[in-house]
């Protein structure tokens, strides 16, 4: 019995490293700790204050580990009216969906956890559309009016944000001429798609903020009216899971933005080995995108739900369609079908 396990490990060791190692589980947990710490430090710096300092004696890097340890020791309260099993499970499953979507993203040439080729971009988008369903499940299971309102609001927002996002990715697909994420990245060798696809990028950026529910659109958990939206009822470890889900969602969407518009793992080589180069470039671009998100987060007021939907339907979708028409026109009429 033990021998079979050892043989299994030897046979697909590289895949195991990928799944548990770099682009897989540990990377996501490390990213969660980094993102929350970075958000608290960066926003604190913008608010002219220090943010966590004393937790790790150096810039407070152990702060998130301290929070996680405290949350693990907290008592978990399950309200009597809530559907207990769904309530407990739904917190954890929220982060599973974006995690599965990240497996498709190549961090270097042919270095994705799930190295299939072909229709990877539509598959990625299909997986990501499941996220709001689990958010509603969380809100509904807690059976508290505040969370239910928060959950329904997140559906309005996701519908208003998702369609323009998908339309803008269509623009990229047409311009690159393929469905496969890796081919899209390769096609950006000459020029990043941000410049030819600028209109599509603007639409993508706005709906990206709507999808990860950051300030201009963080209506589901708007502190002003509903206490924490659909996350109000979770305490202790369950709250840790829902925070994990929130930030893995941010990771998935920003990785998509990098691959579609900023040329994924392309970049002048630092070390010889292509895999390490690609990963370093992806991580650098990831940090830049996350910083941009937090900067946008701090400089705008929260929109009302009807204004957000109006932005989604009246401005983003027509712009996205116009972008598609323009790319078709430019690609096949002027450049003569690349």
């Amino acid at each position: 019995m033990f021998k079979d396990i050892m043989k299994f490990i030897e046979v697909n060791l590289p895949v195991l490293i990928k799944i548990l190692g770099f682009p897989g589980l540990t990377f996501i947990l490390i990213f969660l700790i980094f993102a929350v710490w970075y958000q608290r430090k960066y926003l604190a710096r913008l608010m002219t204050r220090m943010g966590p300092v004393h937790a790790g004696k150096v810039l407070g890097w152990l702060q998130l580990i301290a929070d996680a340890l405290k949350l693990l020791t907290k008592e978990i309260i399950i309200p009597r009216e809530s559907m207990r099993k769904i309530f407990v499970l739904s917190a954890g499953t929220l982060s599973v969906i974006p995690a599965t979507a990240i497996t498709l993203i190549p961090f270097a040439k042919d270095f994705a956890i799930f190295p299939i080729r072909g229709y990877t971009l539509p598959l990625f988008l299909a997986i990501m559309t499941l996220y709001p369903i689990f958010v509603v499940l969380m809100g509904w299971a807690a059976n508290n009016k505040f969370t239910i309102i928060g959950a329904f609001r997140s559906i309005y927002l996701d519908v208003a944000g998702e369609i323009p996002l998908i339309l803008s990715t269509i623009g990229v697909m047409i311009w690159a001429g393929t469905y496969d994420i890796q081919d899209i990245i390769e096609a950006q060798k000459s020029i990043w798609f941000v410049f030819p696809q600028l209109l599509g990028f603007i639409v993508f950026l706005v709906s990206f903020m709507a999808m990860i529910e950051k300030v201009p659109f963080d209506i589901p958990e708007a502190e002003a009216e509903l206490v924490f939206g659909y996350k109000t009822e979770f305490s202790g470890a369950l709250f840790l899971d829902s925070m994990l889900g929130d930030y893995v969602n941010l990771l998935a969407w920003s990785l998509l933005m990098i691959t579609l518009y900023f040329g994924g793992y392309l970049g002048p080589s630092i070390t010889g080995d292509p895999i390490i180069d690609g990963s370093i470039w992806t991580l650098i671009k990831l940090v830049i995108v996350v910083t941009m998100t937090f900067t946008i987060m701090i400089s705008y007021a929260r929109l009302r739900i009807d204004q957000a939907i109006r932005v989604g339907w009246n401005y983003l979708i027509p712009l996205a369609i116009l972008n598609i028409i323009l790319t078709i026109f430019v690609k096949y009429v002027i450049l003569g079908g690349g």
Partner: protein
Amino acid sequence: MRDMMSYRYHPFNEIVELEGGLFQLNMGPQHPISGQGRFIVITDGEIVYSIEMDIGYSHRGIEKILEYRNLMQGIVPIERMVMLDTSNIAMGYVLAVEKLYGVDVPPRAQYIRTIIMELNRIISHLYALGLYSESAGWNPAIFLWTTADREPILDILEMITGARWSYSFFIPGGVRADLPRGVKERILTTLDYLENRIRVYEDSWIYNETFRMRTEGMGVLPRSKAIEWGAAGPNLRVSGVPYDTRKNEPYAAYDELDFKIVTHTAGDSYYRGWARVEEIKVSIDIIRQAIENIPEGRIRVALPPKPVQEEALARVETGRGELNVYMYTEGRDKPYRVKISPPSFRNFYVIEQLPKIQTIRLADVPPLIYSFDPWFLDADR
């Protein structure tokens, strides 16, 4: 007698189903935005049909306590009514006592009082801007910028009076101590710092599209309704009524200083926030004038033994609006009855009446309420 239990309110943060698809949303005392009170909103999910401000959560009964304090001790409880605007509130009480006893305060004390009151008004307006921007969903950056900008002013006040918030510095007949050396330069440098901070607030907040989108044309208070419901302070002036107690009934040194009253006619939430930024600028000029030509002389005068009047009504312009203190005395050292009519008490009534003349959305309730700069302690006394 009445059965109080029948009026028992629903516990906080509960959502109660009413008939006709409406439900009652309690933004209770424990709510990131509600401060020390609660506002009960009856809505169908989007349109708000009625707002009710449930106050009394920090009712200390100051009017009753003042009947057990002589005139000098009365400063301590009344100052804690609004910790933000301590000197303006204390000025109300002190002015009423001075009217009763017919005291004319030496000019130097009046100038010192004006400087401290205007510094306090800047703190109060900064706090109002911070809470207002946070209620509109702003990231707490603006709130923390205003918190940071209050620190230098608090240092000056600590230098002059010895305490950051409740100074007990105004006493009937004058001021407790003279200005320390070097405070003049300190104030002038702080005012210069504040002026370019105001510029930062203006272009990062007032001229920002998402904020204007949320607040322009929302919660419009027409002039006639503002007067009929008794709005106070900037909320009244923004609806076109040019009434400022410092100008109409000058007290302290306001008659010798020239400043303009900030009035607009639009009366919506956007201009209520904008008027407070302009009033900070007006306060800065007032302090500069007062510091320049402050006269020499005594800073305190003893109270005569017997009051001249039996009753007096003092009106003072605090940060939130106009405070009225009515005092009745029978000649003894303790006032017989003190009636305090705070500005927020009247502003809350205006907030409760607004949904009757305007359609207000659920998400607009916090910015609307915080554009009136509510302070539950002020309304509770």
